[in-house]
């Protein structure tokens, strides 16, 4: 496990940084991301080990102790942690889930995130994403994988007008340009 985890924070390349001059679009700097797959029997053990409740409904986020878990599917979570916690978390899970029936993949360098804010944020997102962002259909605390034009994306609604958007790093310039084009219409 240890050889899979970077022991030192690497300098991170953010395609969005430097371009994100808009106050409503800010890159999420730093942070570690993990993809966690678990069988149902291990959810409570893993929740206790991580300090985050994993047994939330599918497509919901849960946060505690500065750690966030987005439940993307019945057996899949996206963990958002600080970089310093990446190594301890992997070790803790390995120690607690003794049957080894889980998968923890470090995807910190695969993805990059932006936080989108503003009153027109749902309209701008709808420029590339077909989901219904009405509060009844996409309440605060909902997090799901979806599609933004042609890019796979993870969307997490942190408040009514604030979204955390995670995309694969290689898709980020594409998504950013599309967001900028759509934003022009709303004079962001």
């Amino acid at each position: 496990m240890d050889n899979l985890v970077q022991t030192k924070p690497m300098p991170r390349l953010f395609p969005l940084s430097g371009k994100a001059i808009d106050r409503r679009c800010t890159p999420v700097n730093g942070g570690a991301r993990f993809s966690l797959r678990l069988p149902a029997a291990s959810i409570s053990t893993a929740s206790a080990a991580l300090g985050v409740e994993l047994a939330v409904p599918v497509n919901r986020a849960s946060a505690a102790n500065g750690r966030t878990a987005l439940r993307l599917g019945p057996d899949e979570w996206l963990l958002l942690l600080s970089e310093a916690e990446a190594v301890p978390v992997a070790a803790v899970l390995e120690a607690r889930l003794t049957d080894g029936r889980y998968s923890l993949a470090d995807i910190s360098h695969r993805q990059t995130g932006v936080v989108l804010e503003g009153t027109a944020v749902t309209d701008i997102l709808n420029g590339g994403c077909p989901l219904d962002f009405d509060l009844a259909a996409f309440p605060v605390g909902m997090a799901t994988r979806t599609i933004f034009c042609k890019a796979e994306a993870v969307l997490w609604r942190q408040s009514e007008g604030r979204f955390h958007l995670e995309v694969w790093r290689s898709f980020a310039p594409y998504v950013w340009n599309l967001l900028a084009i759509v934003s022009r219409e709303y004079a962001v």
Partner: protein
Amino acid sequence: MKLLPPRSPIKGSQEMLLIPCPYCGNRPEIEFAYGGEAHVVRAAAPRTVDDTAWTEFLYFRKNPRGDHAERWRHAYGCGRFFNVKRNTYTDQIEASYRIGETLP
């Protein structure tokens, strides 16, 4: 029951096709990938199956005009495969159910 005719693709429609994922609820069709006919079972011991039955399994599908049980994958969502009962003529979806469950 009288079947409604499908919408004309020429006139265009403002509505989008929503597919009910058993895990995520109604989602737009663009998030899904089609997985072909459902409940096509591979023989446990393929070497004991004769050529006709094997050809049936590999290449022959029902392709009905009407109710059809088919697999879908929520590719840009939870990523799970599931089954859908869809009318291929009207495009109406009657039920969706998880893999391993029987057609309702």
